């Protein structure tokens, strides 16, 4: 399986999580203290895998019989998933208590979904992508319905399952067609022989189906129907994971499998498709979000519009674009985790406070939470000096370099629209007062998780240089 210890060392983050799942199962089965132990065990596990990935970001290698890649971008994605999941765990400790009962399986399934994401990002073979995707998706379907007694959660789970399975069908069918025409599922082989293969209509259809399937997973218009309902029905911490890790994983799979194609001679084949879905997602997400009263639904539509900005990067299809997409995803992950974290605190025991009016006067009642949420909202709106701005800046650079200036212009127009609904939360918190005397007492763990997210958003925004250098350097090594 491994040619040498070095190979094993390189896939260690994946192995850590894999082993962690087994240990967690044992803890859950045999320990009485599982409730106190498992969350923190998960956090440590994720931190270990995340820090290992970050530390060895320069060790680029292809391992396990050309099935997996490590180092560079892959490691950055791994760090994004695991550190994001660690924050979700910290938020969950409090959140799960609301249900009255303790679900040990929550953390185990969370770990397996992260394992799936990591496999997707590291894949060098279409089958590995499929394997990772299924592991992640099936875990997600379960997580969405974690709160068994709530009808909406059941609805979310079922809806997610049906539409997700449908999308996976597209992907499998696409892989089958690609395999049929290329006689292999090796991504390297397909990319190097793309020119010869692209004459084959069957092959192109396969690639297109594959892309459409992933358009579902990244929540792009017109494949977004599941997003608002699933986010609304799922536990808030889980929705945070869907919108960050899940989306980032889908993007990482697209980059891993198709990026070389976009960047190569066939780039122009897919640019129109990607440009159109990016355009539609940006505007649809921004405009419909304005009409939302439920903050989770608002964040869902905002997530659709962010998928649009990220798709600009895919359409631009250059090295800059990949760097931009990776940076944007990292920024978006922490902005959204922080925002969902605060939503999970404010929503209260029976999720009664999901209406945005619950945020009225928050600036007076809970200055710290309000200030954090305001920072995250400004960041999501793409206002400097926060990370969201730099992500957009970099993606627009890539678009303009690739002669997609029109798309960049429409992109900024859509972000001008989106400012309105992000600001609405700030307006409510600071400029409105309310009779609502709701004060939540955030636990220390949740608060730390949110503060860490906000700090990362500020630091990535003011000093994006170092992180950007790591991304671009690893790109040079890979391609």
């Amino acid at each position, binding site marked *: 399986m491994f040619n040498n210890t070095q190979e094993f060392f390189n896939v260690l983050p994946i192995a850590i999580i894999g082993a962690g799942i087994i240990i967690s199962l044992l803890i859950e089965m045999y320990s009485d203290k599982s409730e106190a132990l498992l969350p923190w065990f998960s956090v440590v596990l994720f931190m270990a895998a995340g820090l290992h990935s970050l530390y060895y970001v320069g060790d680029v290698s292809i391992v396990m019989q050309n099935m997996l890649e490590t180092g560079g971008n892959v490691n950055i994605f791994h760090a994004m998933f695991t550190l994001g999941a660690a924050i979700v765990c910290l938020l969950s400790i409090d959140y799960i208590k609301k249900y009255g009962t303790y679900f040990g399986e929550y953390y185990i399934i969370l770990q397996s979904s992260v394992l799936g994401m990591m496999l997707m990002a590291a894949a060098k073979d279409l089958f590995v992508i499929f394997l990772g995707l299924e592991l992640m998706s099936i875990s997600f379907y379960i997580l969405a319905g974690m709160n068994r007694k709530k009808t909406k959660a059941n609805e979310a789970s079922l809806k997610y399952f049906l539409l997700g399975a449908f999308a996976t069908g597209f992907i499998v069918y696409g892989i089958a067609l690609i395999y049929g025409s290329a006689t292999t599922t090796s991504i390297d082989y397909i990319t190097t022989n793309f020119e010869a293969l692209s004459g084959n209509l069957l092959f192109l259809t396969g690639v297109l189906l594959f892309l459409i399937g992933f358009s579902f997973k990244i929540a792009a218009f017109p494949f977004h129907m599941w997003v608002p309902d699933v986010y609304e029905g799922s536990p808030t911490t889980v929705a945070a994971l869907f919108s960050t890790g899940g989306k980032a994983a889908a993007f990482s799979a697209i980059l891993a499998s198709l990026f070389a194609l976009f960047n190569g001679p066939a780039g122009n084949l897919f640019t129109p498709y990607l440009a159109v879905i990016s355009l539609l997602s940006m505007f649809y997400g921004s405009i419909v979000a304005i009409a939302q009263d439920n903050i989770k639904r608002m964040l869902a539509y905002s997530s659709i519009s962010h998928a649009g900005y990220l798709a600009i990067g895919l359409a631009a299809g250059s090295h800059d674009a990949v760097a931009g997409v990776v940076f944007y995803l990292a920024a978006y992950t922490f902005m959204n985790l922080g925002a969902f974290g605060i939503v999970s605190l404010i929503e209260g025991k029976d999720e009664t406070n999901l209406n945005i009016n619950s945020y009225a006067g928050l600036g007076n009642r809970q200055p710290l939470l309000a200030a954090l949420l305001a920072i995250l909202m*400004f960041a999501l709106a793409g*206002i*400097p*000096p926060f990370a969201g*701005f730099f992500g957009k*800046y970099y993606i*627009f*650079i890539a678009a*303009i*370099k690739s*002669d997609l*200036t029109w798309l*960049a*212009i429409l992109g*900024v*127009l859509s*972000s*001008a629209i989106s*400012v*309105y609904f992000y*600001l609405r939360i700030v*307006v409510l918190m*600071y*400029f*409105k007062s309310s009779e609502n005397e709701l004060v939540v007492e955030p636990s220390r763990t949740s608060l730390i998780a949110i503060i860490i997210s906000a700090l990362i958003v500020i630091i990535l925004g003011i*000093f*994006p*240089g170092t992180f*950007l*250098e790591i991304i*671009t350097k690893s790109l040079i090594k890979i391609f």
Partner: protein
Amino acid sequence: MEQNFLLTYLILIPLIGSLLILLIKKEQANLIRYAALAISTVAFILSLIIYFQFDSANSDFQFINKIDWIKGLNISFHVGIDGMSLLLVLLTTFLTPLTLISSWTSIEHKVKEFTFFFLMLEVGMLGVFISLDLFLFYIFWEAMLIPMYFIIGIWGGKERVYAAVKFFIYTMFGSLLMLVAIIWLAVYAIGPLGHFTTNLIELYTVAPLIPMDIQIWMFLAFAFSFAIKVPLFPLHTWLPDAHVQAPTAGSVILAGVLLKMGTYGLLRFNLPLFPEASIQAAPYISTLAIIGIIYGALVAMVQTDVKKLVAYSSVSHLGFVVLGIFAMTQESIQGAIIQMINHGLSTGALFLLVGVIYERTHTREIADYGGLAKLVPVFSFALMFASLSSVGLPGLNGFVGEFLILLGSFKSPILNSWWFTVFAASGVIFAAVYLLWMYQRVVFGPVKNQKLVGIKDMNQREIFVLVPIFILIIWIGIYPGTFLNISDKSTAKVVKQIYNPIKVNPTELGLNQHQTNEVIKR
């Protein structure tokens, strides 16, 4: 290159100061007020030191400080000033402590947040005036919206939420298009320079090379963003709302400094970067400026709310500045610069005075006043003085700027028609009408409103705020040379850049046209 850190310190003082203020307990409101005053005074003293070290015979950027920031994109923390920016930096650091004193008693709740945002606002404004990197400039330009948004939204009047959101989205919309233009420019620079850059000094040599059909779009993207901020007719509709709803300190800074960021942008970026497009657009923009002058004055005339009247007078006055900029002669541009300062002083003073009386009477309706001359003589005198300065009475500051702008636009080869001057001059007359008429209704006549009886005249603190402003008003009016000299060389350089842009030749860098195109594509 030799590094000079003074400007960096100038930014850091309010930045660190505002963070320190967050550490003070909010119950200690007076301590917070004094701390903020001390911080902004230190910044003012530092800017005076910069002024005394400034070499006005040198037209280049001075006090340059360049620190690598985002290496991958050649973005650096690159600051420096020339005469034009120095004047605006001085205006900013001068008005900030004064407005803080003026809001000593009018801001009573959330003093800590207010001073925090106010100092952050100072950081943003200073940053805009001293940035020599377009990316850095954009960061300050946008980030500054956040504190202003909160100042209007939290401490504003009844319709504050509407005004704050309108202000934010209006400005944001314009600047986002500028963002695309900035990126486009930086990508374009890859051709002639071989690297992606947002360094303004490098771009000065590159941007004029842009073919005319694209240059005009670039010009428009920048100009649109700045025109919203100025605000140029017909993009002025956010201004009356923002001004009327903002607290006094907010209005003073908004009128005094924020609006100048727009005209400064036109002067710093549009004219030198896109000279050919500027020359082509000059008659159209000047026409809009003239419409603004007359429209602003006419609308000001029919206002019943004093604050709204002053707000519309800003539209009219800033029209003069834009006319001066786009007449593109040295006189007119010098006039525009001095007029920016003048407007900051006299409109700032007017807003302060409106704030003073509003604090006592809680009304801004002109009809509610009358006969103030007998009740509050000191206030009446101060209002007279500020109004006359705003009207452009010879001997006071307003006259100097308007005269230079009219003179410059009259002999402008670009506008090439004296009609511009004729219409603009009518604006001066209108200004006299609306301001003096307002003055007459507010100050003279019998006291109709019994609520006014017994109001107190200006106290020492309020007088203390206005005295320095009035001294400068007289100083500029009698001896404008002190200030004109500072910007003389820099404006001469701008004029030179318009007519003889410094262009680099791509072939000199060893790239032929084909390679250049390749580089752009990459």
